[in-house]
């Protein structure tokens, strides 16, 4: 803390030092990895940015945004459409502007009202833009799909994505200490209270939504040169939205680095399954997601935190080692009875697992 006397390598200095080392190591990866390894890291990095950006908005406000693929697609397709007209970085800039504009309009229209409208609108936004783009390309420009051939190879994409990841983490970190971040936290807890203490609720929501969408758009734009041929069906893929939500929930939303933990396992899963069994991948993702929603509401981060706490606590064995054994034996030797059938048994187990609520709905 400021003003306190501490020995030189303070915690903050250590943290910054290790973070810088980590970033430098990550930046060096393209020269250490095979081509396959690099393409894997490009996927990881792109989803890392998407997921952390998603959590910037959806974490504090608790509004589930299903519009990620819309912004990702807008970024990617804007670059694809403009690449023959202007230099690459100019297309990135235009894409960023289009994404921010779209997010602003969507946010102003839907976030003012109940959260449900926003969720519903985001759910179909990507599909609607895809339809519009297909129609536009077939009827107006008579092209179905565009080629993106630019000297912007996987290494460059990776380094740009890494830079974007650093920025999104920095923004997220700063946000937690800024007025806007605090305002968002209050909104997430109780919107009425937020309004009472003078937070401009619609403005705060729209502002963070635009920021989050800009990162998503930029990711899409950076990924465009990765694929030589892009059509609307490819750019606006609903699976992107879904994967991002799962990654964020798997990682956990309470910590800034939480969502990052969800990215790697799912990318590995996707690498293993998506090319050969794409539909099994979708089924498995769905199941993983439902397991998270039902049993791990705080994600992997929650597990880690619980584990950490448990490690810090002294072991409690009041009746010695035999106590738990006696309990276990007693539990196992109970007769199996299902008075209300299997469904009843499932419900009983559920009551034990699920967080108890006070009072009724």
């Amino acid at each position: 803390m400021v003003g306190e006397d501490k020995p030189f390598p303070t915690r903050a200095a250590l943290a910054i030092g290790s973070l810088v080392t980590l970033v430098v190591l990550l930046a060096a990866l393209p020269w250490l990895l095979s081509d396959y390894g690099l393409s894997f890291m490009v996927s990881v990095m792109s989803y890392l940015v998407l997921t952390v950006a998603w959590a910037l908005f959806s974490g504090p406000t608790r509004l589930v945004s299903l519009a990620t693929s819309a912004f990702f697609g807008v970024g990617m397709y804007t670059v694809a459409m403009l690449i023959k007209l202007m230099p690459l970085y100019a297309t990135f800039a235009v894409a960023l502007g289009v994404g921010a504009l779209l997010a602003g309009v969507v946010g102003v229209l839907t976030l003012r009202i109940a959260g449900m409208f926003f969720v519903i609108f985001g759910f179909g936004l990507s599909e609607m833009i895809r339809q519009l783009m297909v129609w536009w390309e077939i009827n107006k420009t008579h092209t179905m799909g565009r080629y993106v051939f630019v000297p912007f190879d996987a290494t460059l994409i990776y380094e740009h994505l890494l830079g974007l990841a650093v920025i999104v983490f920095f923004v997220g970190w700063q946000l937690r200490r800024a007025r806007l971040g605090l305002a968002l936290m209050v909104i997430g807890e109780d919107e009425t209270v937020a309004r009472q203490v003078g937070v401009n609720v619609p403005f705060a929501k729209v502002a963070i939504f635009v920021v989050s969408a800009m990162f998503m758009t930029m990711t899409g734009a950076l990924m465009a040169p990765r694929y030589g041929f892009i059509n609307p069906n490819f750019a606006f893929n609903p699976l992107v939205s879904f994967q991002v939500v799962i990654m964020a929930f798997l990682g956990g939303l309470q910590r800034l680095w939480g969502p990052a933990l969800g990215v790697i396992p799912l990318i590995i899963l996707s690498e293993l399954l998506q090319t050969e069994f794409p539909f099994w991948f979708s089924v498995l993702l769905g199941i993983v997601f439902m397991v998270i929603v039902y049993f791990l509401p705080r994600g992997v981060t929650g597990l880690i935190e619980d584990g950490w706490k448990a490690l810090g606590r002294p072991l409690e064995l009041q009746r010695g080692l035999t106590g738990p054994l006696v309990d276990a034996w007693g539990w196992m030797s109970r007769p199996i009875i299902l008075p209300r059938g299997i469904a009843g048994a499932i419900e009983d187990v559920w009551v034990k697992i699920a967080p108890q609520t006070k009072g009724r709905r």
Partner: protein
Amino acid sequence: MPVIEVIFGGVILGGLYALVAMGFNLQYGVARIVNLAYGEFLMTAAFAAFWMFTLFGVNPILGMFLSVPAAFGANWLIYRVLMTPLARRARTRDQLEGETILATFGLLFVLRGAATIAFTANDRYYDYLGEPLRLLGFTFAANRVLAFATAGVIATAVWVVLQFTRFGVALRALAIDPVGAQLVGVDVRRLSALAFACGGALAAAAGTLVSTFLSFNPAIGIEFTMKALVVVIMGGIGNMLGSLAAGLMLGVAEALCSYYVDSGLTLAVAYALFLIVLVVRPRGLFGTA
């Protein structure tokens, strides 16, 4: 083709949307479950009708007597097993909506992936009553007219049940005020499960009707879910007549759009209507809350 014929075509399509939306409204308005996997049940029923027709030559309308009760049972089970725990742990209505959106979003991908594995991603189509029918001086495909008539019969039946039976009154009470309904002796859990199941049954009926005149594949679910959401919000949450009117409006708007602009823009039309409602009257065209 004169405009009036286009509008009639839209009304026929709109009748179907109204049916789809009424089912969704039972699940959302009464049971408070935002079921993003709703369209997947519609898609499953369409495939059931397709296989019954092509393998055993079962008339799709008769096949509904099998698929609709099956969907009712399946949805009742889903509510009891998957939704009850969420309803139990949610403290507020917003929280329940959020949690059910997540859970059913997962369910959507499970069902859609399973259907793609089982049936492949190909477009399916079967020829049932494809011959033209002259009505009021206009020509329609007979299967569309039959689908509209069936949707009309089912929607009327649902409305009569809701309006004139004890069960229906209890459901409407639940839609308006769950706490109040409980105070006057409505068993919220049981009726929510039944409402959810009825919604699923309507989805199955709609899916069967869709399969008689449109081609379909495992990916159509999401579009019907979207349209159901849009229609329910336009008509007002929990308001069945509102769903009916908004469904017809959507059907006509879509028909006009495919006639004048392009048939590939149907979702854009739904969204345009949705946006207008959002901006002008966020509580729905017929909402009072």
